[in-house]
């Protein structure tokens, strides 16, 4: 408020305050509205560039299993499967590992270990994803190839990298959720003869459930939109792997990696170009669905908790 004073000079104090308030109010309004407008524009642009693909490419081709842009084959199926495989693998690795680590840190580890672990995990969160991708390429891929896969660049390699990318989020958010559980619950279980594990597993974790669900969703959110690291380590083959455990050990290509890799070379306005944007729409829809599902889950649990406090 002081800063606006020189411009207004001799006006009475009350009016100055009035003006200052008006300016701030308008600034906030403009900032807020511009965010909405920009999001709207992004969405509009995405639709404008992506929707034509659905008319230019026959639906049969879009739903088909072959992604060969040179031959005008734009099957999205392999890319979708690639993304799902990599993300599902990441979730299967990150959720149990993250939850167990959070439980260890929050409930079992002595104080001094906690004080070492916490900053370490924050540091893991600070590693740029491209560095993780690089490590995946140089260290992890050769290991996986040695273990018997035909190549080291597989869906599984991508899953591990993505899992480690989402672990810090999952760990620290779940640990927050666990530490928010009142000590009284633990005491209540211990005092009638439950062991520490039984207490954690049957009382503390269920009581922290909604927070843990949020933590997992946040972690998945980070994994599904990740591009570059995945591009580096998944082998970039737009195949639909045969069903079975082996599909994790074949090269795949995700939706995000496809856009990142091919955007630079397409002709503006071509069918290929429109299809890449259509992939963007698909990603948007999936992410939106996950977010609203998470919101729904958390929302109902919050409501339940509120009503039970009455």
């Amino acid at each position, binding site marked *: 408020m002081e800063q606006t004073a020189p411009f207004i000079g001799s006006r009475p104090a009350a009016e100055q305050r009035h003006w200052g308030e008006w300016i701030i109010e308008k600034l906030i309004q403009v900032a807020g509205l511009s965010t909405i407008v920009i999001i709207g524009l992004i969405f509009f642009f995405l639709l404008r560039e992506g929707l034509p693909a659905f008319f230019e490419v026959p639906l049969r081709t879009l739903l088909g299993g072959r992604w060969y842009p040179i031959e005008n084959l734009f099957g999205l199926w392999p890319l979708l499967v690639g993304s799902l495989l990599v993300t599902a693998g990441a979730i299967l690795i990150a959720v149990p590992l993250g939850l167990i680590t959070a439980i260890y840190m929050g409930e079992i580890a002595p104080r001094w270990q906690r004080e070492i672990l916490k900053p370490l995990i924050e540091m893991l969160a600070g590693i740029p994803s491209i560095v993780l991708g690089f490590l995946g390429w140089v260290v992890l891929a050769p290991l996986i190839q040695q273990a018997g896969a035909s190549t080291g660049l597989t869906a599984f390699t991508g899953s591990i990298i993505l899992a480690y990318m989402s672990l810090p989020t999952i760990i620290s958010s779940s640990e927050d959720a666990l530490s928010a559980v009142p000590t009284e619950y633990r005491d*209540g279980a211990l*005092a*009638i003869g439950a062991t520490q594990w039984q207490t954690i597993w049957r009382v503390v974790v269920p009581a922290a459930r909604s927070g843990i669900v949020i933590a997992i969703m946040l972690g998945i959110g980070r994994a599904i939109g990740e591009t570059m690291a995945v591009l580096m380590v998944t082998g970039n083959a737009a195949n639909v792997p045969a069903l079975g455990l082996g599909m994790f050990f074949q090269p795949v290509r995700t939706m995000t990696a496809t856009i990142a890799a091919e955007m630079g070379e397409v002709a503006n306005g071509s069918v290929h170009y429109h299809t890449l944007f259509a992939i963007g729409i698909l990603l948007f829809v999936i992410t939106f669905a996950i977010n609203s599902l998470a919101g729904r889950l958390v929302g109902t649990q919050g409501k339940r908790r509120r009503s*039970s406090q009455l």
Partner: protein
Amino acid sequence: MSNKIEVRNFSFFYGSFQALHDLNLDIQANQITALIGPSGCGKSTFLRSLNRMNDAIPGAHAKGEALLDGKNIYAPDVDVAELRQRIGMVFQRPNPFPQSVYDNVAFGPRVLGKPKKGDLDQLVTESLQNAALWEEVKDRLRDSALELNPGQQQRLCIARAIAIKPEVILMDEPCSALDPVATLSVEDLMRRLAETYTIVIVTHNMQQAARASHYTGFFWLGKLVEFNRTNELFGRPKDPLTESYISGRRG
């Protein structure tokens, strides 16, 4: 009349701070023993040391003996979880788990093993009946325990504690968060439970001790000043400190 717990030269320390000084008392089986005394005199410390709930506090340690049926609670070969299955505890603030009424009571039996569904139903019903809560919750077994009122929650915690059929129940000011009506119903319940269990209750409410207990111990600054039958202790206190405390001149 037999001694369920015998406390011999028992002291308790939080690090270098001595919270309990050389206690000696016998807790009789199937009787209600009340512990009274001003705030901070060590009642909770004593109660919690009987089922080793203080074990987790860094630096806390005990000296002397507390014998449950002749066996030292602090002997190195004692399994603490097993000990607590024999000596259960109910806390000052009702602390039902954020689960259903049924699951709260079934918690202990499930922890102990894998009871059959029919047996478990039976056990939950019995425990709720013995805790004088059955009539109020029999149609709400699947509702969250947090939806019960505080008096019901405390009786639920008692039901949860008796579902594993302990021998001793420790209660740390179980009525202090309850209104007078709920308090009387918990006291009533205690008297009936004493037929089956040995009960030790901490209370800062002297009327409650006088009303509801058979034996009373008076604590002062970590020492047990006087321990006697309740009517003796309140009727003819031997120690002048006890007398002035129960007549309300101190504390």
